[in-house]
């Protein structure tokens, strides 16, 4: 399959955003227009006068990508070109769950025919690994650092897919860059469904999470295999498909110990209890989704 994201961009070795963008484009195909908010992906792919994008691409601001996407879609309709291009918004977790929340909520409520892919690397990577609403419980980031009296981020991830389901989106899916076929197929399905569709891609960041640049895919897979990141599809409000883990399920330690951001849980007093809380989150997912 042809990659519509050219090599030579400024992403780190093992960059999750580059993989996510590449897979999303494989799913969407070349007849698409990409809207990309501010963040790592935008900065690393378009240092003027260069661009890595082989599809039309527009970046406006950090918090408005879904609104810009609404505008692109409306223009295509008004100009009689709606069948000529899919509208594909691709934004980071900060751009999606936090600062862009109003804009994505508005776009989905209005029912624009667009697909929104959230590339969730679980923090504001572009500005140096600050916490976001997608940062997991007990992860150490630069604004939720572990310290003498802190285990790091003290809140669980915001459940963004559920919020998008609540908007009445006809299709909401979670995926992971550890499973490229899964991601490509889900984006393809999403762009082919009329109306606002949402794909939330888990994307481990080598720099922000602290693991070797060769391990991006391995870490991504482990998140799924522990039950911390369940892969599922929701169509018209109903869960229609779940990726089962079955007997191969792994304890969350196996995932946590791969990453520097959780290192303190293995060295601090009381760490074991904290890990148990994270295991409880995974168990909940296993139960809810029948993993």
């Amino acid at each position: 399959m042809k990659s519509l994201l050219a090599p030579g961009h400024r992403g780190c070795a093992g960059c999750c955003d580059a993989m996510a963008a590449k897979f999303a484009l494989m799913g969407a195909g070349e007849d698409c227009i990409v809207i990309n908010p501010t963040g790592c992906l935008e900065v690393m792919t378009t240092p003027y006068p260069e661009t890595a994008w082989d599809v039309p691409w527009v970046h406006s601001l950090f918090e408005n990508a879904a609104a810009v996407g609404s505008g692109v879609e409306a223009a295509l309709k008004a100009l009689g070109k709606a069948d000529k291009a899919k509208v594909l918004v691709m934004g980071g977790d900060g751009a999606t769950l936090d600062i862009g929340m109003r804009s994505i909520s508005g776009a989905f409520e209005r029912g624009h025919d667009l697909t929104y892919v959230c590339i969730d690397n679980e923090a504001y990577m572009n500005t140096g690994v600050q916490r976001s609403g997608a940062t997991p419980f007990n992860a150490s980031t630069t604004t939720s650092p572990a310290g003498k009296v802190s285990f790091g981020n003290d809140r669980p991830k915001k459940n963004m897919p559920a919020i998008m389901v609540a908007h009445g989106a006809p299709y909401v899916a979670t995926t992971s860059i550890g499973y490229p076929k899964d991601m490509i197929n889900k984006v393809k399905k999403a762009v082919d469904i009329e109306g606002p569709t949402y794909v939330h891609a888990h994307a481990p960041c080598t720099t922000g999470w602290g693991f070797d640049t060769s391990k991006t895919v391995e870490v991504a897979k482990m998140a799924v295999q522990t039950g911390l990141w369940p892969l599922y599809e929701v169509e018209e409000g109903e869960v229609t498909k779940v990726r089962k883990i079955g007997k191969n399920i792994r304890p969350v330690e196996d995932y946590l110990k791969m990453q520097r951001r959780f290192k303190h849980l293995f060295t601090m007093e009381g760490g074991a209890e904290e890990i148990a809380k994270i295991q409880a989150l995974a168990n909940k997912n296993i139960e809810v989704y029948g993993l």
Partner: protein
Amino acid sequence: MAPENKLDKSKMVVVEGSYAVAHAAKVCRPNVISAYPITPQTHIVEDLSQFMADGEIPNCEYINVESEFSALSALVGSSAAGARCYSATTSQGLELMHEVLFNISGMRLPVVMTIANRAVSAPISIWNDHQDAISQRDTGWLQLYAENTQEISDMTAQAYKISEDKDILMPSMTCMDGFILSHVYEPVVLLEQDLTDEFLPAYEPEHVLDPKNPLSFGAFADPNYYTEFRYLQEQAMQKALKKIEDVANEFYDVYGRYYGGLIDEYRTDDADIIIMAMGSIVGTIKDVIDKLRDRNVKVGLLKVRSFRPFPVEAIKNVVKDAKVVVVLDKNISLGLNEGALFTETKSSLYNTDIRVPVVGYMIGHGGRDIKIDTIEKIIDEAEEVMKTGIKIESQFTDVKEELL
């Protein structure tokens, strides 16, 4: 010599200012309208919504956004995708758009937006002054101010023609005084569809988002490149100085109506005192001038239509032989105790041979009524300045001491 306005009275209908503007926007054949309601802009978007509901705007989508921030953000996408775009807002809505304003102009997207000028909070006020738009002065939008409903409606078509010009490609705000113009019922000639089709060519942008020719919009520029983007924007603003004049003349040729180009003048030929102002206050000033002229006070008006780009040469040309210039501002730069038109007029004259005293009055904040008496008093004081020089350079007008 400025062309003489040939208003065809037989074509006039009595409508609300907002309706005239909405009608003008419609006649300009926009492809995407995106706006969020806020007093006193609401009637414009309601009228446009009704046009949409009645199928009166062909090839157009109206996006009912959830905020002004998204209203203008959506137009980034629409304009980049090749659509002619329209919005309208005021006050809090305009301030909420601040970040997007820079973005639109930086990307050279020729969006046109009507501003029903209103004061900004706090304290919250729905009434007119110019603080909202003036505070967006440096965002790279053309800012044109209208005197009456006829002018603001016609200015819509002019703005598209200026903004979409290949040498300009900068967005425009067309400014009308909130309530004073937006809610007044006056006879106007509604912008004519046939003439507008003749005057305003279809929007055919050179660069659009199109899978057949993939381009990247909104790349990031490191210090090697950023300066030139800003420089080119300023060049476009400078070119707009002439374009605004040209378009006003072209408009006159097609429609027979004229309101000035960058500026307009009223009884300035032999004037010792020149009053400068923007917006609907100009009408009041003209009445005062007529009255005082009867008493042989040599006073004239310089109406500023274009605040951005700022018409430095045009202003110099009018005030060079005056004995005093009085600038009225419905805004203030807090901490400088001056309104923007005053500050910029002074700066236009500095480093030149023109040695005319300039005094400033900040007036009409938050919709405070501007009375004929007040203008007369200001002109009286200007006569004093002519005799004895400047005593107070810049001041608030009509402050109620008993409330302080």
